[in-house]
């Protein structure tokens, strides 16, 4: 295991080294791709900048709101669809069309409907994430083996106890996966909406830095977002693996 970890770190180090060298030695235009060391110091400075911190706080609040709504909502609706095969058969094709539709093209409509602000960001992120989380919920419901349910019924399990002792533990890995999707797409949705039109937020900052050709700041912002996303994602993956290691086949 440590060999894998070490080689992964090595790859990251090599990429960082190449980046630094390419920029320093002029293999690429340093105005377009500033050296990593410079981006690092800009990022460090930004983290002490009140303006950025308040923008970051806003963005995190928007993401949290969207995640809190779409995670449970998507999973619950998905669960009930997955539990009702006739309903799923009827609605399935529609859902897949909605899933495939790029939600970003509706951003102007969201702005017209909800204005530019907190509500619009959250509602757009929820819309963007909903169908993906929904599919996780459907998959979770369908992943429960019918035999386990039959056996538990034969032991006199009521509907509530079936949900509690069979469905929930059986669906746990896919529930965590659904929450992971909810989080990733909530982040994407909020940033997208901020970049498209906003007065505040990290997305707007990054977009503005791009417009002003302030590449070190732009890359520092991107790096910050990437680090936060990866950290949160890893956290959820750990939760997922805890569930999986307890699940060792029938």
């Amino acid at each position, binding site marked *: 295991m440590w060999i894998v970890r070490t080689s992964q770190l090595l790859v990251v180090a090599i990429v960082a080294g190449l980046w630094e060298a390419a920029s320093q030695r002029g293999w690429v235009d340093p105005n377009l791709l500033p050296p990593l060391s410079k981006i690092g110091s800009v990022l460090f400075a930004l983290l002490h900048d009140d303006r950025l911190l308040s923008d970051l706080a806003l963005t995190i609040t928007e993401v949290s709101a969207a995640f809190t709504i779409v995670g449970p909502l998507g999973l619950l609706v998905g669960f009930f669809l997955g539990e009702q095969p006739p309903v799923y058969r009827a609605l399935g094709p529609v859902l897949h069309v909605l899933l495939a539709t790029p939600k970003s093209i509706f951003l102007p409509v969201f702005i017209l409907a909800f204005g530019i602000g907190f509500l619009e960001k959250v509602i757009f992120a929820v819309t963007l994430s909903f169908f993906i989380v929904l599919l996780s919920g459907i998959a979770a419901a369908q992943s429960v083996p019918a*035999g*386990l349910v*039959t056996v538990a019924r*034969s*032991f*006199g399990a009521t509907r509530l106890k079936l949900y509690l*002792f069979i469905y929930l533990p059986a669906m746990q890995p896919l529930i965590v996966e659904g929450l992971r999707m909810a989080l990733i797409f909530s982040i994407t949705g909020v940033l997208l909406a901020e970049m498209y039109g906003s007065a505040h937020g990290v997305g707007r900052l990054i977009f503005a830095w791009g417009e002003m050709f302030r590449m070190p700041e732009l890359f520092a912002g991107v790096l910050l977002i990437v680090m936060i996303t990866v950290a949160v994602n890893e956290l959820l993956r750990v939760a997922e693996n805890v569930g999986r290691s*307890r699940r060792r*086949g*029938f």
Partner: protein
Amino acid sequence: MNHRPTARAGSVEIIKVERLSKQYGSGANSLRALSDISLSVSEGQFVTVVGPSGCGKSTLLLILAGLVSPSSGDVWIDGAAVTGPLPEKISVMFQEAWLLPWKTAVENVEFPLMLRGAPFAIRRPRALSLLQLVGLEGFANRYPGELSGGMKQRVAIARSLVQEPRVLLMDEPFAALDEQTRTRMGNELLQVWEKFGRTVVFVTHGLTEAIYLADFVFVMSARPGRILERFHVELPRPRTIEMIGNEAFGRLRNRIWHLIGGA
């Protein structure tokens, strides 16, 4: 055999089925699975049900278990009309063990008691003693994924006995196992049965297994399933592998074979 609480010849009727029919769907697409089945089983008997595949023997078992409702007819078990699962009277086992993969062997055995809210101090010792009965005392803390197919079915046997049901319903429980394991599991099941004296209804498509285990063999016809005949197996207990080779066994086996083939 003598310490079994109920005599094999006991005449207390524990399972009674009257004019049972089951039809799936309606109109032109309907499927008649079972037709006019009546039967009676006395307490403590080991009965097997054989028939061609698709004859509805599994459906019959699910109806006895209260997991599927019949289209018409009635089922009584231990004096109670069966309209849904009766966990304190009936246990069911299937071809797959269906253990909860996130629970250990002993937790799986306790599971029916946990569902009824029995405290740990009561359910744990009982589950452990049942695991010992099926020879798995050393595997109490293993997960199902770490057990072989035969071991999983032994855990399932222990689990189905944990509520001390009056009737054990088994739907081809050993069909997925290799032949040697199947024979050994059959013998172990008989030992457990001799000890507990519960009534067993065992569905199988294996004629040898059906005769070897049973006091009575019910033979079913092809769809829609009907009871063609009930055979009394008069081999002494405990049964031994050698009996499979003897003449009486062979004669009975041939009669059932022709009955199913000619149906």
